[in-house]
């Protein structure tokens, strides 16, 4: 590089100072604050007492926290299958010659992902509502299944609630992943498909042996997005069930929030935050190595 374009250190410093200060203040300072307060018994007031690793010991034995972690994993699994899987099938359908209105499917399908998760949560709360919800309306008015006036309160069922909550999450982002995958598929050299067609490969064979391997990297990106997105699930669930009934739809960040702000147990809340940090990072690193190794093996 020419020496002349190289600005003085002073200039660079001036340019970087404010952005990096803001960045450090909102990202690194809270991180260390959480670490610091996680060693205290602190209820948010002026009094706080050092209690060593007590918070972390209770965190390890906290059934609710680990259940919440399990729910995050559940959501990841549900969304990898339900979002990326369904999106991939939709892309195959859209790319088959018989399907019309491709542009409309893209525009409409993508739309829910631009809406606030809070709004999505509200809409689905209304869909599941026991008295005026669409699901119960459908059961009684369309399927004519008599409920004898005793309507089903969907979101109050501990055994169903995770499934019901993952449906809006999946639905919201199917179109998003669909569009990402479409753009990856459309960048595949069409002569590959033509050659395969001439050789007599069926549509399914073309999908399996050409499309899938060619968009592997994109699918990898989608899965990474999916995992990161579901580790931070919060908004939908806050609106729809707020973790209930009991803790049967609790996720980690919501649990941290509840412990810190409803129980005002900020010390333990900080320990939970550190726990979320470590677990999320762990999951992301593990899944990254697993996914890259998996794709490398299939290339051999």
């Amino acid at each position, binding site marked *: 590089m020419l020496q002349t*374009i*190289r*600005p003085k250190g002073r200039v*660079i410093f001036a*340019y*970087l100072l404010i*952005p*990096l200060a*803001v*960045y450090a203040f*909102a*990202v690194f*300072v*809270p991180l260390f*604050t*959480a670490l610091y*307060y996680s060693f205290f018994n602190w209820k948010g007031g002026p009094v706080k007492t050092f209690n060593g690793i007590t918070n972390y010991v209770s965190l390890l034995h906290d059934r609710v926290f680990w259940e919440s972690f399990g729910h995050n994993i559940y959501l990841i699994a549900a969304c990898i299958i339900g979002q990326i899987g369904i999106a991939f099938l*939709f892309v195959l*359908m859209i790319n*088959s010659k*018989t399907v019309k*209105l491709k542009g409309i*499917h893209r525009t*409409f*399908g*993508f*739309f829910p992902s631009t*809406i*606030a998760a809070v*709004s999505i949560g*509200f*809409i689905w709360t209304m869909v599941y509502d026991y*008295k*005026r919800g*669409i699901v119960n*309306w459908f059961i009684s008015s369309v399927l004519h299944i008599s409920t004898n006036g005793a309507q089903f309160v969907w979101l109050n069922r501990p055994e169903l609630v995770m499934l019901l909550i993952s449906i809006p999450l999946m639905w919201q982002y199917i179109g*998003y992943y669909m569009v*990402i995958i479409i753009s990856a598929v459309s960048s595949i050299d069409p002569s590959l498909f033509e050659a395969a067609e001439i050789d007599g490969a*069926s549509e399914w*064979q073309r999908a399996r042996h050409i499309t899938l391997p060619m968009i592997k990297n*994109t699918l990898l*990106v989608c899965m990474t997005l999916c995992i*990161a997105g579901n*580790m931070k699930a*919060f*908004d939908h669930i*806050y609106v729809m069930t707020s973790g209930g009934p009991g803790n049967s739809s609790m996720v*980690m*960040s919501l649990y*941290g*929030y509840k412990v*810190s*702000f409803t129980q005002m147990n900020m010390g333990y809340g*900080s320990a*939970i*935050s550190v726990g*979320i940090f470590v677990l*999320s*990072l762990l999951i*992301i690193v593990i899944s990254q190595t697993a996914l890259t190794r998996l794709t490398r093996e299939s290339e051999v």
Partner: protein
Amino acid sequence: MEYGIKRQSPAARITIGVVFNAILIIFSLTCIFPLLWMLMSSLKLKREFNASILSLPAAPSISNYITIMTNPDYHIWQSMFNSARTTFLSVFFIVFFGFIIGHILARVKFRGNRIVYYAMLLGMLIPIHSLLVPIYVVFNRTGLNDKWFTLIIPYVAFGMPISVFLVEGFVKSIPIALEEAAAIDGSSFSRTLFTIILPTCTPILTTIAIIQVFSCWNEFSFALVLMKSVNLQTVPLAMTQFSGQFASDYPKIMSAMLLTMSPIVILYFAFSKQIIKGMVAGAVKG
């Protein structure tokens, strides 16, 4: 398969075509249905909605809208203004800072270059939601919580890494000769930065702006912990309050939701091509 050469019969082809089309049309309808349902229901009164949730309004009335718009206790306009201000300023700074840092990382060799790079990379990896509680503690301690500018700080910080990397990648693809020529002609670093590099980067900066407008307007959890005053609430926060007040009056909630959603919905349908393109580019490159 053994019979790879076998062709599907025309009947099977047509059936498959119909099924595929039907599935996709149903999916697209479900995506747009909430919007239509809310629009339809918002024109009904509570009684009519409760009687039949899916019918067209018998006597469309905008009284729900009039109530929520005129009663200042609901803070609809206030919350939309707050969201607009927060979004506009956050996006401006994300783009501006992202541009400067991204360009410096791509072009200027200095001692801290890698440090800044890894700090940004770390920001991409950090699960932001683990900061929810500690960020409240920090902002509370420094007295920065619950101000009109409060949310801009985390939004800018969280949006910066992706923006930096998108710009960095883009600047690296611009021929360096451009800057060299400018330098030979006596243009200073800052002047080259703003009069030559900035216009060249417009496409990527637009992409960043698009992604961030949506994420800032829709952001909920940090607003929830950092904001208390009712008159400083952003839209998602106001919606949770509002629906608590009117738990049983769905048409009113729906009209409020539709109203506060409208800027983003209009924006989306007006520029859907560019928005989809921008979001996809951002997701894949980031």
